[in-house]
């Protein structure tokens, strides 16, 4: 079992408790890095929800992520400056996008889902690049104004404030998801993943359950997109490229596919490893510009080395 899976029983609250004081302990650069890790971690959690819990392996969560990010950026540009409003709008946009695309995904299984979601992610990125009137194409949208999280609070002008905002949002969203997954809803989803035929024989509408999970994951990804805009103050189609899909899926794989918290930890590990490799002097210091190479290499290593059949051997679906 993955080391990270063993750690997660220590509790999601423990993780938050550890991360909270980092706002004051770390320097600005490390704070910014940790903030980015949290954003990607939330996206990875949405991938884990689909891949591990619902049994729908996906390379396409960058689609609702981009939809959410562009929604948030557009709101910023229209002077909507409350962080929570941007967040809710982005989450709603991501969820709506997933609702519309759900019929494409929830009737397929296994690698076919991978195929379809990959195509969807790419298509979305292409739309982002071409729909110039809305997205400004490959130039991207600049969303420079820092938001205030709630009406009446100060705007997020410092790295520390941004970090705390992102941490709070991630903690709340992942926490709620974990609670939901502990409820009967989680059992229904896991049962659907483990044995669809038996679910049908017991009268359960499997496609309906998968659709709900898919829409929820879309909402999470959309929310992550809004956080991306808050942190980077900018979005472009490249934010949803193959290497982000790879990074996020890798995080999920390392963290143990079924664990949302594992996805967060996995994101941290992957980003840290990628940055560490980039900072090395290997090959004359040229590793820095080669994120896809590093990620791909890590991917290959993990596929070979992780024995838990990667995304689990769910014989009912393979």
């Amino acid at each position: 079992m993955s080391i990270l899976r063993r750690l997660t029983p220590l509790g999601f609250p423990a993780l938050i408790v550890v991360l909270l004081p980092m706002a004051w302990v770390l320097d600005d650069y490390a704070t910014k890095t940790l903030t980015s890790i949290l954003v990607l971690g939330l996206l990875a959690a949405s991938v884990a929800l689909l891949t591990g819990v619902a049994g729908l392996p996906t390379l396409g969560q960058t689609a609702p992520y981009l939809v959410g990010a562009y929604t948030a950026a557009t709101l910023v540009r229209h002077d909507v400056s409350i962080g929570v409003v941007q967040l809710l709008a982005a989450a709603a946009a991501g969820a709506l996008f997933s609702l519309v695309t759900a019929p494409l995904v929830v009737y397929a299984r296994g690698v076919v889902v991978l195929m379809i979601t990959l195509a969807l992610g790419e298509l979305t990125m292409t739309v982002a690049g071409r729909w110039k009137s809305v997205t400004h194409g490959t130039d991207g949208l600049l969303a420079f104004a820092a938001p205030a999280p709630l009406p009446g609070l100060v705007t997020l002008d410092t790295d520390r404030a941004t970090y705390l905002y992102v941490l709070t949002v991630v903690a709340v969203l992942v926490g709620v998801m974990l609670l939901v997954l502990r409820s009967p809803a989680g059992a229904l989803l896991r049962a659907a993943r483990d044995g669809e035929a038996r679910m049908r024989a017991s009268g359960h509408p499997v496609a309906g359950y998968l659709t709900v999970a898919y829409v929820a994951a879309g909402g999470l990804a959309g929310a992550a997109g809004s956080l991306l805009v808050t942190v980077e103050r900018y979005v472009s189609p490249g934010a949803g490229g193959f290497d982000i899909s790879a990074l996020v899926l890798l995080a999920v794989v390392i963290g143990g596919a079924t664990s949302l918290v594992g996805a967060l930890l996995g994101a941290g590990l992957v980003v840290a490893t990628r940055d560490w490799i980039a900072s090395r002097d290997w090959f004359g210091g040229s590793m820095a510009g080669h994120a896809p190479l590093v990620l791909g290499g890590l991917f290959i290593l993990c596929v070979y080395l992780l024995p838990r059949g990667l995304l689990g051997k769910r014989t009912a679906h393979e």
Partner: protein
Amino acid sequence: MSDLLAVDGLGRRYGDLAALDGVDLRVAPGDRLGLIGPNGAGKSTLLNLIAGSLRPTAGRIRFDGRDVTRLAPARRARLGIGRTHQHPAVWASLPALDNVLVAARLPWGRFRAGRRAKPREHARELLAGVGLTGVEQTLAGALSHGQRRQLELAMALAGEPRLLLLDEPAAGLAPPEVEVLASLLASLPLTVAILLVEHHLDLVYGFADRITVLHSGRHVHTGTVPETRSSPEVAAAYAGVAP
């Protein structure tokens, strides 16, 4: 007509091959019907057609007066058709008790009226009823083959079916386990009609009130146990004579 299940002219073809051809069947509430026949007779095909996991190419299925021929399996299950599978289908990553709880739930999670007060107690009773004690919290994936069979039966019963389709429950069981299965079958609620597909003839003869025999996709005989045992057509079918 008090038929719970009425199957008329049911057929399933694959290209030129007819796995099932022109089969009629009647099941009344509370019936104990055995379905037997040599390999390839079409027993599992018939069971799957009734359960809905296969679509027929000919014929009609009515359940409780309602045409269910085109209904999806989940719909039929909600109407009261329960089933078990040849390879016991349980949810491996959930504990045994949770398997029964999920199976007892209606779509979107509610429990049936009458079970809402104490669902866990009821689930425990079901487990005890099929002979599974002490494994409530064991993950279903860790149970033995025989225990999974028992669990799936409990799951099927949790759905409060009016017709229960059992697909070769004795497959893979050792003789002592078959004994246990036989007494388990005997203890099933009399309000539930049961269609038992089986190869294990003694088990069927000891359980069923009536027996239907299929051979090469066709109906060959329906009758009481003594009638079936002494039927020349049935003997011929098992001897490999073409129908």
